C-alpha cells in the first residue's frame, strides 16, 4: 500500500459553486436575461408579490419564474396562473438553491427570449444567503410582522442583498415595526442597498419596485 501523504488545499468549500455561478451569470448576460434571486422567510409574501409583479409588467416584459421548494408545486401553479412561464425545482431536502440547481431549472424553463427570470428561493433567512445561485441581483423581502430586529439576527442575508423590500406595510398599524430602527439595523450590515416599503395587496409602494426592476433589466441589456 502506498504511503499516506498530506495535500494542502486551502480552498473555500463553495469555490466550485462560485465558478458555476459566474459561468451562469456570463451566459445570462449574453442572452440579455436578468436573473433575480428573491429570498425571504416562509410566509413573507414572495408568491403574492410575484403574482402582482407579473400582472403589472406582463405587457412589456417577458417573465419566467423558477420556484424552489423542498417539496410540492403549489407556488409554480399559482404564478403560472398569472401568465408567467414557471418551473418548480425541488431541492431534495436541502435548505437552499445552488448554481447547479439553478442551471438545471433554467434549462427546464427555457429562458431564451425572456427579459427577466425570478428565482423564488426556499423560504429561509440563513442558508440561501450563503449560496451564489448565479443571479445578477439579490433581493430580500422582510414582512412587517417579522419585526424590525431581523437584520441583527440574520446579518448575512441583509449584507448580501442588492435591494431590501419591506412587505405587508398595510399591516403596520397592528405591529410594532419602527422604520427608523429597521433602517439603522440594515445600515449596520449594508450601507448602500435601497430599502423599499410596499404592499402587494393594496398596491402601495409597488411602483418603485417596478421601476427598480425596469431600470435593472435595461442596465443588464445595455
Amino acid at each position, binding site marked *: *500500500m*502506498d*504511503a*499516506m*501523504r*498530506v*495535500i*494542502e*488545499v*486551502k*480552498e*473555500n*468549500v*463553495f*469555490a*466550485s*459553486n462560485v465558478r458555476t455561478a459566474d459561468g451562469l451569470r456570463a451566459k445570462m448576460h449574453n442572452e440579455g436575461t436578468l436573473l433575480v434571486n428573491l429570498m425571504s422567510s416562509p410566509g413573507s409574501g414572495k408568491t403574492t408579490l410575484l403574482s402582482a409583479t407579473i400582472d403589472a409588467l406582463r405587457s412589456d416584459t417577458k417573465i419566467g419564474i423558477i420556484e424552489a421548494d423542498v417539496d410540492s408545486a403549489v407556488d409554480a401553479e399559482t404564478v403560472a396562473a398569472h401568465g408567467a412561464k414557471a418551473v418548480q425545482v425541488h431541492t431534495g*431536502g*436541502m*435548505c*437552499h438553491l*445552488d448554481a447547479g440547481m439553478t442551471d438545471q431549472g433554467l434549462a427546464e424553463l427555457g429562458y431564451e427570449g425572456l427579459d427577466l427570470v425570478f428565482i423564488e428561493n426556499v423560504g429561509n433567512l*440563513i*442558508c440561501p444567503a*450563503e*449560496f451564489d445561485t448565479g443571479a445578477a441581483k439579490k433581493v430580500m423581502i422582510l414582512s412587517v410582522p417579522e419585526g424590525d430586529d431581523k437584520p441583527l439576527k440574520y446579518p*448575512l442575508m441583509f449584507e448580501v442583498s442588492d435591494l431590501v423590500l419591506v412587505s405587508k406595510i398595510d399591516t403596520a398599524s397592528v405591529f410594532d415595526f419602527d422604520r427608523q430602527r429597521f433602517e439603522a439595523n440594515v445600515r*449596520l450590515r449594508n450601507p448602500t442597498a435601497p430599502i423599499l416599503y410596499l404592499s402587494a395587496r393594496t398596491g402601495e409602494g409597488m411602483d418603485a419596485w417596478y421601476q427598480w426592476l425596469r431600470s435593472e433589466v435595461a442596465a443588464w441589456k445595455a
Partner: protein
Amino acid sequence: MHELGIVFYAIDMVEDLGRENGLTKVSRVTMSIGEVSGVVNDYLTDCWGWACNRSDLMRGCELQIEQIDAVTVCNDCGRTYRTVEFGRTCPYCQSGNTVLLRGNEIEVKEIEAC
C-alpha cells in the same frame, strides 16, 4: 440542512482532487471553520460520516475541524477585539462602525491520502 450542503461541497472538492492526483484512499480531511460561520460542528461531523460512506474514496475518512477564532476590527479607533465576546460594538470606543476580520471561514485546509 445547511451542514449537509457544506459536506457535499467539501466531498465533491476532495473527489475532484482525488481524480486529479490519482488517489485511491483519503484517510483524513481537515477543515477550517470560522467561529461565527454559522456551522454547527457536531452536525457537520454527523453529516460527514453519513456522506463519506457513499463513496469508495472517502469511506471511513476522518474529519478534523480546526476552529478559527473570530476577530473584529473597529474602523474608528483601529483596534481589534474578540467578536463573540463583544459583537458589533467596539469595547474600546463603543463605535458600531466595525468589520469582521476573520471567523467566517468554511474551508478545506488539507487532506491526507494515498
